[in-house]
């Protein structure tokens, strides 16, 4: 029988990394996600699986340690919270440009600036629209439970290596800090250096006489070469949109109105749906699991049956822009959000929803 443990979302990330064959974690402390590195240091995986854990001097350094580790074909990850992710944007752009796989966790807090250590979802644009310089995207996974925090580490690595691209787990302070039952999936072994050299022939494993040198770089001064590199990246992002969109729906079959929410807000909005249904209002929930690639097609599929759609976020309205692009003006797209780290109740969301549809 599978083992279940009660743990924080942040702890689930750490335990999952060890159990899923992660080779290295490099991080810098920041609230509300410090439990990730703390748990790793307590677990001492270097004595069991051989996983390397290192506290870096900054988030700038930890993301560049990922660049080095990923260049070696190793499964490497880091975690941080909003201000730390801002520092990592340079590195993420380089990782995307050099086509390197890695997993980055952002347990989002309120911003801008030092902001607050309370939960937020204001990093949606940074996560989904690039953040760093240049035309790049990342896989963005939005967990809404401790179990998904656990599962998305493995899924993140799978997708990162499938596309040779960074994968971002965009959590929030609620999901990181809340304790829930987590099922421990079967252990996965780390790969040996020989397996890495064979499976990832691009990796810097040391130039042997039987092959050409491997160079990991994002530099291409020749305009034609650089355009080809960019075209390749864009083709990859298109493939992500075709093959790896993930979402969940709740009571959408007969829905006349739909709320779109992710992370902790999706959990809260489930109760809002139940309240609406109890009063006979046909409200459903669409929960994007991948924020990039965004479930645009599912929104387009639902739109003809809907009167309104509402984005509910812990931000001033960021995901709503992707919903509007999908809906393309066919029905009203409403918004409700709280800022500053305030997490609204299901009732508050329901009141806001009713106010909008009765306008």
């Amino acid at each position, binding site marked *: 029988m599978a083992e279940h443990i009660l743990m924080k979302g942040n702890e689930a990330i750490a335990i999952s990394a060890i159990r899923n064959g992660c*080779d*290295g974690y*490099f991080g810098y402390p920041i609230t509300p996600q410090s439990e990730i590195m703390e748990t790793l240091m307590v677990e001492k995986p270097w004595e069991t699986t051989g996983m*390397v854990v*290192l506290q*870096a*001097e*900054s988030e*700038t*350094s*930890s993301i*560049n*340690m*990922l*660049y*080095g*580790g990923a*260049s*070696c074909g*190793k499964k*490497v990850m880091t975690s941080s919270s909003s201000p730390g992710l801002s520092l990592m944007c*340079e*590195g993420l752009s*380089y990782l995307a440009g*050099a086509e390197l796989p890695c997993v980055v966790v952002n347990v989002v807090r309120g911003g801008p600036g030092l902001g607050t250590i309370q939960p937020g979802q204001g990093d949606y644009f940074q996560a989904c629209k690039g953040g760093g310089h240049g035309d790049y995207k990342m896989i963005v996974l939005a967990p809404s439970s401790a179990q998904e925090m656990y599962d998305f580490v493995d899924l993140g690595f799978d997708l990162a290596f499938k596309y040779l691209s960074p994968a971002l787990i965009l959590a929030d302070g609620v999901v990181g800090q809340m304790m829930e039952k987590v099922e421990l999936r079967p252990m996965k072994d780390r790969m040996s*250096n020989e397996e890495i050299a064979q499976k990832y022939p691009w990796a*810097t*494993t*040391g*130039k*042997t*006489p039987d092959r050409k*040198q*491997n*160079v*990991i*770089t*994002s*530099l291409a001064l020749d305009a034609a070469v650089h355009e080809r590199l960019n075209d390749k990246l864009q083709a990859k992002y298109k493939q992500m949109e075709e093959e790896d969109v993930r979402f969940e729906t709740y009571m959408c079959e007969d829905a006349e109105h739909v709320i779109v929410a992710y992370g902790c807000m999706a959990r809260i909005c489930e109760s809002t749906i139940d309240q609406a249904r109890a009063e006979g209002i046909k409200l459903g929930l669409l929960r994007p699991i991948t924020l990039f690639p965004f479930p645009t097609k599912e929104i387009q599929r639902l739109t003809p049956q809907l009167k309104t759609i509402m984005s509910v976020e812990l931000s001033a309205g960021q995901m709503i822009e992707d919903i509007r692009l999908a809906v393309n003006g066919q029905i009203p797209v409403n918004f409700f959000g709280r800022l500053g780290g305030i997490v609204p109740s299901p009732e508050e969301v329901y009141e806001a929803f009713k106010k909008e549809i009765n306008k």
Partner: protein
Amino acid sequence: MDVKDIIKPENKVYSKTSVLTDNVMHYCPGCSHGTVHKLIAEVIDEMGIQDKTIGISPVGCSVFAYNYLDIDWQQAAHGRAPALATATARLFPDKYVFTYQGDGDLASIGTAEIMHACNRGENIVVIFINNAIYGMTGGQMAPTTLMGMKTATSPYGRCEELHGKPLKITELISQLEGTCYVTRQSVQSAAAARKTKRAIRKAFENCSQKKGTSFVEVVSACNSGWKLSPVKANEWMVENMFPNYPLGDLKDR
């Protein structure tokens, strides 16, 4: 005697190491980079570690070091090479990992990364090219630019009020517990180049003995940036750079 009679294997006194590729270098004639590249290539060849060596190239003129040394390379963001090297050395503890960085990369934008990698005693080699100028971007002031030295961003000469004094980063590095070998060398003459090669060899050997971080500064000439002929640049370096950056070992343990 015909020239064909002379070109015979038994008469050969020197071969270019195969670790150095045949690509034509983009460095300006008179630049020190090419010499240092060759010395590293020879050390890798002589130690027989081509398949175990991973280089980390910087941002600066030597960003293209990977075109000239036939080993696996990672090209880092500006200043971040020691972070890449840290992860690489920890994940591949049996490899030889070295960074190759200029003064802007190592002593300005990358100070945090180099100080902490050295302080942790990462088992890596650092080759630090100090030519007191930003070569690639067109000759701007570097942290190691000498007082009074004219550059594109100190057109009237470096002055203390405006720019502060040159950063003696190697002296700082030598104070860090994690470093086992810190030395300052040069390559303006055959004798100097031979000394530098010995230092690089020692640094790589320290790596195999897992002694910590070895740091080799090479005081170098950037004749284009200094706006001098190659010969004058070397003379100027000896007269002006060496008094400020004295050659020799700062630490060897």
